[in-house]
């Protein structure tokens, strides 16, 4: 193994992704469309990319920022990122020009992106009803998953449940509403949809459906939401996969910065595993109560 298992052409190299569009879809929410054939081709739902949020001439901000792939168009070689502006890196992204609205003729803007990284969700059984449960910007990987499931030869029935603090934070919802799936919303203050947590909304829907055992949950959201999803899936013996987030130094397993107590299988102990390297998607039965331990 003097050269390792993969052939050079398969190496994942940081690559220049061309900005196709950079649309604001609501206060602080944006969709960035990038063109880079190999990233688009390899991306699967749940995977993420690491974006260098500077022009490459500077070391500040130093670390790349991780973002789930929101969707990928393999034919046209483009992929999208749904992001909210929370700090320097995401504000830098928001300031990238939107070539769709700026004058043509300017040279294309490129962003240095590494990826795709991480694993993907498993495919549901044919008779399973799928519940996608997302909080905030955690809906990003669920959108890609919904597209993927709808493209299956026999697409399952899909419910999408989105939670937000208030109605104002439901911006990502429009793209879901255009899909042939059932879309439901929950807000903590009741300003729109179900009044309460999105996990309680899920329980209502599931009970309305006769507490069917063939429900399969895919979740991604803030820590508290992920935690209640984990707990209720275990209490009710429901198949459930959760896409986790963590502060990331590298995004591909070399820094040990992104761990959580996760077991290898139902019989083994919880040990600190790397979310970026063994995840970010995990079966809920492998996660520790409290998730971060």
């Amino acid at each position: 193994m003097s050269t390792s298992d993969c052939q050079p052409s398969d190496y994942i190299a940081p690559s220049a992704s061309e900005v196709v569009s950079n649309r604001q879809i609501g206060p602080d929410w944006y969709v960035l469309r990038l063109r880079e054939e190999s990233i688009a081709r390899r991306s699967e739902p749940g995977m993420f990319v690491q974006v260098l949020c500077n022009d490459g001439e500077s070391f500040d901000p130093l670390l790349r920022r991780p973002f789930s792939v929101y969707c990928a168009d393999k034919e046209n070689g483009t992929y999208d990122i749904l992001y909210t502006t929370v700090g320097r890196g995401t504000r830098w992204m928001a300031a990238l020009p939107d070539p769709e609205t700026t004058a043509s003729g300017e040279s294309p803007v490129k962003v240095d992106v590494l990826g795709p990284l991480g694993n993907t969700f498993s495919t549901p059984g044919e008779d399973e009803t799928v519940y996608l449960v997302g909080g905030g910007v955690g809906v990003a990987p669920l959108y890609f998953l919904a597209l993927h499931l709808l493209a299956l030869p026999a697409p399952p029935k899909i419910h999408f449940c989105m939670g937000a603090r208030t109605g104002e934070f439901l911006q990502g919802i429009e793209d879901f509403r255009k899909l042939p799936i059932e879309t439901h919303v929950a807000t903590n203050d009741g300003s729109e949809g179900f009044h309460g947590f999105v996990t309680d909304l899920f329980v209502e829907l599931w009970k309305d459906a006769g507490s069917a055992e063939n429900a399969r949950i895919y979740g991604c959201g803030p820590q508290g939401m992920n935690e209640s999803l984990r707990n209720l899936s275990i209490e009710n013996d429901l198949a459930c996969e959760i896409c986790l987030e963590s502060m990331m130094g590298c995004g591909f397993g070399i820094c040990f910065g992104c761990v959580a107590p996760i077991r290898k299988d139902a019989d083994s102990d919880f040990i600190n595993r790397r979310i970026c390297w063994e995840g970010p998607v995990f079966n809920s039965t492998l996660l520790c109560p409290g998730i971060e331990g």
Partner: protein
Amino acid sequence: MAETLKTRLGSLELKNPILSASGTFGYGKEVESFVDPSVYGGIVGKSISLEPRKGNPLPRTWETASGMLNSIGLQNPGIDAFISDPSYLPRMSAYDTRVVVNLVGDTVDEYVEMARRLDSESAVDALELNISCPNCPLGGMEFGVDPEATRRLVEAVRENFSRTIIAKLTPNVTDVVPIARAAEAGGADALSLVNTYVGMAVEWRQRRPRLGGITGGLSGPAIKPLALRLVWLAAQNCEIPIIGIGGIMNTDDVLEFIVAGASAVQIGTVQFIRPRIALEIIEGLGEALRELGAGSIGELVGTLETDRDAITVRQADEDGGEEVPVGE
């Protein structure tokens, strides 16, 4: 004559002067989909301890201005799994590069026990003794801040390991020179410096530290000037080869360390951002040798020209950086 990137750490020859730094490369397997580990002159795995360690609470990393703090806390599988599990040493030994095992212990006996076991593993080309981790109360740091303890530790490992021994020094000391000399006196074949600078970040609204471990080690370009100074001082004061570490981002940075006195370098944090950077640097070094008309890396090592010697400068630094007239 064609230029050569070969360099030496005592009796150990490296095909090029670029090594991966401990804790920033996994154990090689993780980077395989990004770069062939065999391109490196040597690879250093994350610190290994006698027993497995689960590491520190989250968060474990925090970005700072042109740098990052980490408090990973030496999470590792322990020496038994490291030697026998196919994802660790057996896999590292299959790469066409030098394999350096970085060790951390709480006592001299722990280092000795691990060194003895690795002495019979022919895949291990060198040991790097981490006597400098800022992230654990017993992370080897108390060895690295005391010259006498450093000497005794290196001596004890020397008696139990027949190949190359590298002592990795902490920058978190008032004066690195006595520690460097002590490691040399104890029988180290080379010194590597620096490990991370201990630091801290605070969230004032919550009144909480940013890191689960409260304090952490600073790495990245922010520390390069600090590291360069220590590498230069160590090189001026020791006979054994120096491995320069700290904030290296590109070929220019590598050459700065080499000119300041390093015979090889380790690249750390940069690999998080540019996993294929070793390839770029190796290519860049070849070009730099041609530009300078130099036949080998060795011709450049320690060629920094200064108007004052290191002893005078070190004294002036200690006196608060008082200006010493040039030529004095």
